[in-house]
């Protein structure tokens, strides 16, 4: 009898695949059949859509309805096809003109009352649609700001199915309710994407100001309650290590007695990291959008993420996975930011070792029957550990009762291969009395350190311009040797360590990377012998 087509997107990981939704109305007993590998939630759409259509004052076609989702081989999950199915069905029934559907993408879950509900993963879905040439998207109001981050796409924010239909039929207000608002994604002069307010309503929908605006281009928070590096007492070596890691994207391990400031330092590392650039912000926001962890009213994440999973976390929680919809894990949520594993030896060993592959590859690949999801996972790993399980201060002559075997076993829970991938290993000493009382005045604030980190990153980015890498930690070893070797002769001590077996070949590459970062921080054009020796010292740390 009649056929209509609409389009939506199926997400596999953070990759969107355009899905064609066909609705066919044929003679026969009233029924609705859905084909094309829908999961349970999508099968339930049948009843949801019917209630939504009827409660929106539209007529439910009393015929045999077949809805096909293609490509049929792609597993389709969740409720975000609701809107596309409902509109397609009404178009097939002749209640919406079919020409209005040209180049429009639909994304939203319907409530039984016809309300349009927000869904996860709008940003990557709209981006995928834009790539395939779709220029208009209809989404729920709460998703509009996120969808408008994609440039050159007209976003229509509808509160209800009726509003969406009114917009399609060009009959604003006919079906009652608030009419749909049109947004237009755009880029401002600084290359920063800010969604404009809706074109029609004249209301100002501005992106909420960031909590911190200390330095231009840094993440230093200005509020008094925000953590600041100045609060950390003593630990000058650990501060230095954190600064190096922040500047070069290197991984860090902190070993020290309780109360020395491991957690405190790790939590303050985000305050010295620069803000994300546009591309990175979109990437990070996409991941968080799929995970459903975007904070409300903040469409674009511009601060580097900081993830501190509890040590009881499972492998799926850290690297991603889960049955049904594959969700990104902490490692991916920490993409372009910091993954902090406090009490690292308490983590299950297989969880820690599952991080080895993403640490090398910069992405997590989760395979499930029929689909393989890829999540970017280029994070800075920070491990913190007590030197022994008794966790009593282990300074000179204090009461640690652990035998050497116990201590070795405890730290051996962090496997060698994982530790081999950690560039900077710092041992923290307990804070002394003098530091506690005097150091306060000399501790650098996050703002000061953040500026140095920013400058070092700019130097590295300038050197690496034209290459796919942005941070020293990302440059592969072969490229490092060929294009950016340190000053001749400066690697003498490092080479000797290699000969003695103190350091692996991978370790040498890591030392050179860290040496570059140290040189960048100091403003030197090339790492000197001192830089390389310092990097070696940081890499070796103190082994127990």
């Amino acid at each position, binding site marked *: 009898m009649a056929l209509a087509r609409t389009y939506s997107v199926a997400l596999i990981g953070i990759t969107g695949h355009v899905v064609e939704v066909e609705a066919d109305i044929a*003679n*026969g*007993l*009233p029924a609705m059949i859905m084909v094309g590998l829908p999961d349970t939630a999508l099968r339930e759409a049948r009843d949801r859509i019917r209630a939504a259509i009827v409660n929106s004052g539209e007529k439910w076609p*009393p015929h045999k309805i077949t809805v096909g989702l293609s490509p049929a081989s792609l597993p389709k999950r969740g409720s975000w096809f609701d809107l596309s199915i409902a509109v397609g069905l009404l178009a097939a029934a002749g209640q919406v003109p079919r020409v209005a559907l040209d180049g429009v993408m639909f994304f939203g879950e319907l409530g039984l009352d016809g309300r349009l509900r927000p869904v996860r993963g709008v940003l990557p879905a709209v981006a995928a649609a834009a790539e395939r040439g779709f220029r208009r998207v209809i989404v729920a109001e709460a998703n509009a700001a996120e969808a408008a981050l994609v440039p050159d796409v007209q976003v229509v924010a509808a509160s209800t199915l009726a509003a969406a239909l009114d917009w399609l039929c060009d009959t604003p207000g006919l079906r009652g309710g608030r009419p749909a608002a049109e947004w237009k994604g755009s880029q401002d002069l600084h290359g920063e994407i800010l969604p404009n307010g809706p074109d029609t309503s004249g209301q100002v929908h501005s992106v909420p100001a960031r909590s911190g605006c200390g330095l231009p281009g840094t993440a230093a928070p200005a509020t008094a309650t925000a953590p600041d590096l100045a609060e950390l007492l003593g630990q000058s070596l650990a501060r230095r290590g954190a600064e190096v890691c922040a500047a070069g994207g290197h991984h860090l391990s902190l070993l020290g007695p309780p109360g020395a400031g491991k957690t405190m330092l790790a939590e303050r590392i985000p305050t010295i990291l620069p803000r994300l650039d546009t591309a990175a912000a979109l990437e990070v926001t996409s991941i968080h959008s799929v995970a459903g962890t975007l904070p409300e009213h903040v469409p674009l994440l511009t601060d580097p993420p900081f993830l501190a999973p509890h040590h009881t976390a499972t492998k799926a929680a850290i690297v991603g996975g889960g049955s049904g919809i594959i969700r990104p894990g902490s490692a991916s949520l920490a993409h372009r930011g910091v993954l902090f594993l406090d009490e690292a030896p308490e983590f299950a060993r297989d969880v820690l070792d599952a991080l080895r592959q993403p640490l090398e590859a910069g992405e997590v690949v989760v395979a499930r029957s029929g689909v393989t999801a890829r999540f970017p996972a280029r994070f800075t790993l920070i491990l913190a550990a007590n030197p022994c399980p008794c966790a009593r201060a282990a300074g000179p002559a204090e009461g640690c009762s652990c035998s050497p075997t116990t201590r070795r076993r405890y730290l051996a829970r962090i496997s060698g291969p994982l530790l081999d991938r950690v560039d900077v290993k710092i041992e923290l000493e307990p804070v002394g009395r003098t530091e506690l009382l005097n150091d306060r005045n000399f501790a650098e604030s996050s703002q000061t350190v953040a500026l140095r980190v920013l400058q070092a990153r700019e130097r590295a980015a300038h050197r690496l311009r034209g290459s796919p890498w942005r941070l020293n930690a990302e440059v592969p070893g072969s490229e490092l040797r060929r294009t950016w070797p340190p000053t001749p002769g400066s690697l003498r001590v490092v080479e000797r360590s290699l000969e003695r077996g103190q350091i692996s070949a991978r370790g040498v590459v890591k030392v050179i990377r860290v040496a570059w970062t140290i040189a960048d921080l100091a403003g030197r054009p090339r790492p000197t012998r001192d830089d390389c020796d310092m990097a070696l010292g940081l890499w070796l740390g103190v082994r127990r």
Partner: protein
Amino acid sequence: MRAKDILGKSGEQAAAEYLEASGLRILDRNWRCADGEIDIVAVERHALVVCEVKSRSGMRYGSPLEAVSRAKRARLRRLAVQWLNAHGVRFDQVRIDVVGLVYEGTGGFTIEHIRGVG
């Protein structure tokens, strides 16, 4: 007689007239056996048509056609076989049809006839 039965009766009458007008020859009406009742048995060309009639006084509870469930259709198939056996006849084709009627006031119905519902 209760109101719903009066509606059903007049609906069946209207359906029979409608089917005859559209060229079906009616063989039997309200044929009963132990398993249930066939509203209308008719012939269209070489096919035996077992017809279920559903009447509604309005659309408040949805279209009358929706009330013909999968189980109902399965029962109609069984009844068709029983009718054929009881009468000792054979047909090239046996079909199940549904006629839905919605009462529109002043004795009129809107009629929808769906052929071959399985």
